[in-house]
C-alpha cells in the first residue's frame, strides 16, 4: 500500500460552547423555526472563533499521544467568522498553544469549504516535512452570523474541531482528493466590512449549483480511486441545512446508512467551516480499520472539496470519542439571552 504512505490524522478534538438554544425558543420568538434543528450551541459573550479554535486544539492535543507543542510544523486555521478582517489570526492560536514561531501557517477564511481546505493544505505541507515526529494542527472554528430577522439566522450554530496530523500512529490517512470551483453568484455571501451573511435565497438555483459542484468533486474522487459508492463505509456531506447534503448523497448513489452517522445538523446547526469536520470526527469516533470515508465540503461562490480517507488499524486502539461528550449536556438559554450573547441586541 505504498501509495497510501503519507501523513494522516492522529488525533482530533471537538468543542461546542456550553450554552444551548432550542428550536422552541425560535418558535416562541418568531412563530416558527426555519432550520431543522432541535438545538444549537451558543458561544459565550467572551468567545469567538479564535478562542474556540484554541479550545478544540487543546482537546485534540490531549486526546492523542503526548506531543511538545513547540515542535509543530504547520498550523492551518479555518473560519468564516474571524474577529479581525486584517491581522494574522494564527498568531493568537500559536501564542495560546505555545506552538513555535517558525511554524508554517495557513488561514482559510472565505467560505464554508475552508475546513476541508485547511485539512488538505496542512496535509500537503506536512507531506513536505517528512521526518520522524513531524506533525501539524488543523483548527477550524466558526460562529457565522446573520440578521435576527433573516430565516438564515435560525440555523447558524457555533463550534470548533481540531485535527492533529502526523506520520506515526495515524488513525486515518488521506489517500485522495478532488477540488471543484466554478463562479456562482448570489448564494450566501458577506461583502467586505459586513458582519452578517446575505443569501438571495434562490433555492432552485443554489440547490443545483451545490449539487453540481459537490457532485463533481465526489465524482472526480471516485474516478481517481476507481471505487464505487458502495465501497465506502461513510460519506460526510455538507451540513448547512437539514436536507441538501442528504439529497446529494442519494443522488450520488450513497445509502442512508453511509451518511447518517456523520449527519448531525439537528444538534449542531450550521457550524460553517466545521460542519464537515464535525461529521468526520463523528465517523472517526466509530470507524473500524480498513473502512473508507469520503468527506465532501461545499462553499458558496462556489467551491467543493472531496477528500478520500482510509481508516487504519490504529483507529479504535485508544478510542476516546469526542463528538458525543462535546454535544451532550449544555445549559439552555432563551432567545433574549441568545441575542445578547451573540451581540445582536
Amino acid at each position: 500500500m505504498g501509495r497510501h504512505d503519507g501523513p494522516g490524522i492522529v488525533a482530533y478534538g471537538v468543542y461546542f460552547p456550553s450554552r444551548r438554544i432550542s428550536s422552541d425558543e425560535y418558535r416562541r420568538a418568531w412563530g416558527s423555526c426555519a432550520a431543522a434543528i432541535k438545538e444549537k450551541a451558543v458561544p459565550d459573550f467572551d468567545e469567538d472563533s479564535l478562542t474556540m479554535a484554541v479550545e478544540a486544539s487543546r482537546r485534540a492535543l490531549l486526546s492523542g499521544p503526548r506531543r511538545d507543542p513547540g515542535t509543530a510544523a504547520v498550523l492551518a486555521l479555518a473560519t468564516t467568522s474571524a474577529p479581525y478582517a486584517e491581522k494574522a489570526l494564527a498568531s493568537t492560536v500559536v501564542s495560546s498553544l505555545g506552538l513555535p514561531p517558525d511554524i508554517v501557517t495557513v488561514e482559510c477564511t472565505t467560505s464554508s469549504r475552508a475546513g476541508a481546505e485547511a485539512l488538505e493544505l496542512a496535509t500537503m505541507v506536512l507531506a513536505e516535512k517528512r521526518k520522524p515526529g513531524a506533525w501539524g494542527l488543523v483548527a477550524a472554528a466558526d460562529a457565522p452570523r446573520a440578521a435576527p430577522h433573516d430565516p438564515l439566522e435560525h440555523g447558524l450554530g457555533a463550534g470548533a474541531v481540531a485535527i492533529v496530523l502526523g506520520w506515526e500512529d495515524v488513525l486515518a490517512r488521506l489517500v485522495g482528493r478532488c477540488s471543484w470551483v466554478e463562479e456562482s453568484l448570489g448564494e450566501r455571501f458577506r461583502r467586505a466590512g459586513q458582519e452578517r451573511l446575505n443569501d438571495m435565497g434562490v433555492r432552485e438555483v443554489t440547490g443545483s449549483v451545490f449539487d453540481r459542484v459537490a457532485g463533481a468533486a465526489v465524482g472526480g474522487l471516485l474516478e481517481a480511486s476507481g471505487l464505487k459508492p458502495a465501497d465506502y463505509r461513510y460519506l460526510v456531506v455538507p451540513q448547512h441545512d437539514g436536507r441538501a447534503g442528504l439529497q446529494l448523497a442519494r443522488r450520488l448513489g450513497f445509502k442512508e446508512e453511509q451518511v447518517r452517522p456523520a449527519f448531525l445538523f439537528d444538534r449542531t446547526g450550521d457550524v460553517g467551516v466545521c460542519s464537515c469536520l464535525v461529521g468526520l470526527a463523528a465517523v472517526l469516533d466509530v470507524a473500524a480499520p480498513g473502512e473508507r470515508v469520503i468527506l465532501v465540503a461545499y462553499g458558496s461562490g462556489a467551491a467543493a472539496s472531496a477528500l478520500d480517507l482510509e481508516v487504519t488499524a490504529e483507529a479504535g486502539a485508544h478510542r476516546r470519542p469526542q463528538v458525543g461528550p462535546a454535544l451532550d449536556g449544555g445549559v439552555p438559554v432563551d432567545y433574549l439571552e441568545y441575542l445578547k450573547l451573540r451581540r445582536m441586541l
Partner: protein
Amino acid sequence: MGAHVSIAMYQRNIPLRYRLVGQRCQTCGGVNFPPRAVCSQCSKGTRFEDIQLSGRGVLYSWTRIAGAGAPSEFAAQAQALGSFVVGLVQLEEGPRVVAQIVEVGRSAPRLGQRVEAVLRRIYEEDGVIRYGYKFRPAGDAAPTPPGK
C-alpha cells in the same frame, strides 16, 4: 482589574496571559505567577526559568460583579450577562491568581471546586481584543467537556 493597561504592557505579558507561563525560582524552586522581579516565595531569588503551568486549580474565593459595579472595560459584558463572577484560584503549582470564572451561570460557585483555564476575550479597547485566561469548572479528570 479596572486599571488601564497599555497595549505595549499587555503585549509583554502575552505568554502568561494566553497560556499561563510562570517562572520557577532558581534559588528556592518555588513557582511565581504572575512572574516577579524578586521571588515571592523566598524574597531572594532573582533568576528564574519559564515553566508552563497546567491551568488546573481550585476555587479559593469568589465574588459576583453586577452591572453597575463593573469596571468600564467590562461594562458591555456585565450588561449582556447581567453579572459575572471573579474568583481567586489556587493553582495546582501553588500561586493564587485572580480571574473571571465562566460557565457558572447565575448559580453560586462552590468553594474548593476544581477549575481549569480557558482562553477567552477579556475586554476590548480601541477596537483591539485583549485575550487572556479565565477559569471554568472542571470535573475530577481533566480535561472536561462542557456539561459533564
